[in-house]
Each structure stands twice: as C-alpha cells, then as structure tokens.
C-alpha cells in the first residue's frame, strides 16, 4: 500500500495524544502518588489536545474531496472509519464538560466524565486499528494484532509522554520516580510488535486463487495499461527487502528499546518520548509500505 504521510502522522500523533490523555486523567486521580498541580495538568491536557487535533487535521489532508468530509460521521453503524471520526468529534465536548466541571466545582460530575473520556480514548484507538484490521483484502492487516497494536502503541507513547509532562512541575515538588507504567507498556509493546512481525498472516492468496485456475502456473502476460494507474499507484508500492529489514530494526530500537533504557536509567523523558514517536512513525510507515493488497494478484504478483 502507498504509505500516505498524512495518515501515518495522524495515527501516531492522535495515538500519542489519546494515550497521554488516558494516563493524565488517571494520574489526576492518584494525588497521593503523583503530585500534579493544576498548571501541569492543563499543560499536559493542552499537549494531548494539540497532538490529537494535529493528527485529526492531518487525516483530512489525504481526502480528495474535503467538502464532503462532514458526511463521514453518518455511517457509524457499519464503517469503522465513521465510528472513529464520530468518537473523535465527541471527545471534544466531553473534555470541555470535564474541564468545566473541574473549574466551576461540580464534584459529582468529574468521576463520570473522566472514566468516559478514558473509555472513549481507548475506543478511538481501537476504531483506528479496526479501520485497517477489518479489511479482508489486505491479509497482513486482517488480524486481531492490528487493533491490539494501535491501542497498545497509543497507550504506550502516551505513558512515555506523561513523565515528560510531569517534569514541567515546579521544582519544589521533587524529582519524578521511575515511570513504571511507561516501562511496562514499552516492554509489552516490544513483545507485541515482535509477535506481529512473526505471526501476521502471510502468503494467504495466490494468483491461482485470483483467477480460479487452481492448477498449473499462472502468470501475467500484459496488465493492459502502458503507464501507472490509480491501482498501481495506490496498491503497487513495493519495499526492497533489505531496506525493510533496516527500517524494522530502526522501529524496534527507536520505538521500544531506546525509550525503555532512557526511562529506566535516566530522567530524559522528553528525549525518550520524542525518540519513541519517531520510532512509531517508522513502524507505521512500514505497516503501510509492507502491506500487500490482493488486487496485486491481478497485476502479476504470485502471492499476497
């Protein structure tokens, strides 16, 4: 598949923002352990809102006809893309309600809005994953590992961002302890990513299945077009194997190992979260670049 930069940025940026929102809200409940003053909370919330909003705006950049984007909220009964958009739009008024309840002092409301926001954020991450996971035409994506990856990597990058936000607290609060949630999720993320690399569906369909000639060798004589088409442009992207291997290692090292080491041994949380996000961008680029659509079988590829 063509790795569209706007979609890659959207999924990583919104994912990190939603993850940060989840952990920020949960941290705000743990006043005894995580001493977070209101200013730091608002700074973190602003960062989360910035990441989510930048991602959502970026996601509209690849639309060829943006003026009809408003209709995308209407088919939530069947379409994961619609569900994702609708929930993302619902997030804003709910977050505003939560902040208003905190600010104007309605103590009975924040527990409800807080946990609804947490659930909504995770639901959005799941919907984003299912946009890709539900496609039977891309066997590599059509597995439960895809939504699991989106949810876990979002929560993971948010968990790495939380100590970075907490480092903005006034000096008299004292140093930040070891961010155990970030470390746990980075380790879990690494395991899930390795599991995905080893266990994703592969070679599920052959060119024989595509044409229904079950026996013999089938090969393309002529694709019928002299230059590229919409289909070759959209689905024809092929990544060189050695380049893929290099990028996979960059993703593993940057998204998981380096942030894990930095979180465990140092207090360089901004560096850890930036490197983690760079690694996730590489991982997401690979997610698209390595995926093969079954329509490639009709363009001569032997198996997908």
């Amino acid at each position, binding site marked *: 598949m063509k790795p569209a930069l706007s979609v890659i940025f959207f999924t990583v940026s919104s994912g990190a923002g939603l993850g940060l929102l989840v952990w920020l809200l949960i941290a705000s409940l743990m006043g005894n352990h995580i001493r977070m003053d209101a200013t730091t909370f608002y700074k973190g919330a602003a960062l989360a809102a910035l990441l989510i909003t930048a991602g959502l705006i970026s996601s509209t950049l690849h639309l060829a006809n*943006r003026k009809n984007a408003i209709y995308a909220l209407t088919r939530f009964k069947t379409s994961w893309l619609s569900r994702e958009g609708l929930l993302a739009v619902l997030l804003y008024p709910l977050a505003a309600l939560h902040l208003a309840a905190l600010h104007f002092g309605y103590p009975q409301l924040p527990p409800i809005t807080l946990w609804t926001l947490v659930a909504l954020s995770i639901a959005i991450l799941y919907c984003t994953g299912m946009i890709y996971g539900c496609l039977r035409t891309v066997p590599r994506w059509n597995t439960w590992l895809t939504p699991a990856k989106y949810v876990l990597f979002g929560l993971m990058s948010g968990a790495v961002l939380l100590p970075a936000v907490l480092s903005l607290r006034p000096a008299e609060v004292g140093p930040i302890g070891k961010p155990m949630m970030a470390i746990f999720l980075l380790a879990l993320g690494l395991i899930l990513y390795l599991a995905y690399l080893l266990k994703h569906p592969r070679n599920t369909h052959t060119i024989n299945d595509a044409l229904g000639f079950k026996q013999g060798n089938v090969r393309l004589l002529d694709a019928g077009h002299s230059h590229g088409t919409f289909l070759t442009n959209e689905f024809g992207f092929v990544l060189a194997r050695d380049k893929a291997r290099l990028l996979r290692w960059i993703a593993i090292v940057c998204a998981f190992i380096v942030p894990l080491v930095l979180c465990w041994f140092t207090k360089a949380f901004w560096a850890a979260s930036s490197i983690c996000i760079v690694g996730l961008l590489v991982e997401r680029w690979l997610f698209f670049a390595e995926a093969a659509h079954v329509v490639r079988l009709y363009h001569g590829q032997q198996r997908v």
Partner: protein
Amino acid sequence: MRLGLAIDLDTCVGCHACAVACKEWNGESLMGGAPDYDAWGKAPTGTWYNRIRHFEIEGDPTYSPHRCGSTSETGKHEPLSKTVNVPMSCMHCEEAHCVTVCPTGASYKRAEDGIVLVDPSRCMGCNYCAWACPYGARELDENKGVMKKCTLCVDRIYDQQLPEEERQPACVLACPAHARHFGDYDDPQSKVSLLADARGRQSMLDDLGYKPTNAYLSPRKPVEIKTELPIKSGLSDKARAFVNRLIQL
C-alpha cells in the same frame, strides 16, 4: 433483481473494445465521468471502470488433456500455455464490503437491482472503498476528487427512449466476440443464469466472502480428438475397400 454480467473467458479475445466503449459512454455521462490525465503526454493515464488483463496458464491438465500428456506419467505439469483475457469491472457483489466500509454513505447498493453505485455529492474521496475492493473495480476521479466505478450503465439499461435491444451496458453491446452478456441472476431462466449454470463460474477470491454477482464463465474443456481412424467392417465398407484396391492396381 440481481443484475450483472456474464463474461466468457473462452471467447474473450482481449481486444479492449469493452473498455473503450465503457470509456466512451461513461466518459461524459451524468453518473460517470472518467477523465484522462496527461492524455497526450509522455505518461498517459486515466480513470477506467473496466480493465482487461491478459494471463497465461501453463500446464493446467484440465484444459489440455490430450496435448499435455497425463500428469501421472511425469508427476508434474507439462508445459503448455493457454492465454486467457480477463476483463474486470465492478462485480456488484452481494456482500459488497466497499459499501459497508464507506463512512459517508456515498457508496450504496441498490435494493431493487443490486447495482453498486457511488453518490458523487456525498463522496469525500478517502479511497477506503477502493482498499476494500479485492477486484480493483474502483478508481478515483482525480479531477472531481470522488470515487468512480462501473455503474452497469444504469443510465442506459432503464432508458425507455432507447430501442429495447440497446438497453444493455455499453461494454456488452460493443463486444465483437459476444463474450459479454447482461441479465438478471435472480431469474433462473435468464441468459446469464443459464450460461453460468451450464459453463460454471471461475472462483475468483471467493474465500474473501464478497459473493460477486458477475460470473466469469470457465473456458470449455477441450474435446479429445482421436488420431487413429475408426476401423469399420460392414459389408459396404468391404466392398468399398475392394473397389479402392482395384482402382489402385
């Protein structure tokens, strides 16, 4: 009604006339619009609702029993090439996943005749439906930014002003080999249903569960031609052989 095409893989000669006729009819039509990009330039491309691809099948014993030799003798396929031309457009699937994934409701499948269409006034050009289509039936109109696809010439087949025999998709009318047929698969006596039953459908990615309406009629199995002459032994044959021998003396 369940309207669709039956495409004969045996008689299709791969001339691309159906694609050209499609482009001609839909290029400027109300439902369609299939623009070309850089049409007279170095790398011409464009939006097509129908594309013809050409494949070679090597050593399929089903289609070459007498020329191929028995596979049991050698244990592997003997090389023999068969060329099939495969025109592909929208299959108007019964389980049209392109419709269910569409977030805007621009893609829809008509209840009355099963035709899958795109409403250009709702489409936002996200390409998601093209991703969901295994057959490459959907292509973006880059000028208007909306998805385009085969409409089964919905603006021809119901047009009362056309003579009845012309109320068919443009590709079907254009096909010089009569390899394309149009009809209602819900009617077991329709031409397409009878053809699909008699000839069998090629299974094209059926395991994905889209249930395509269009049928690709399997190539006919070749009839084995016996090379030795039949030996007859009736009285008239004997007499004829006797006369022949006399003449040749």
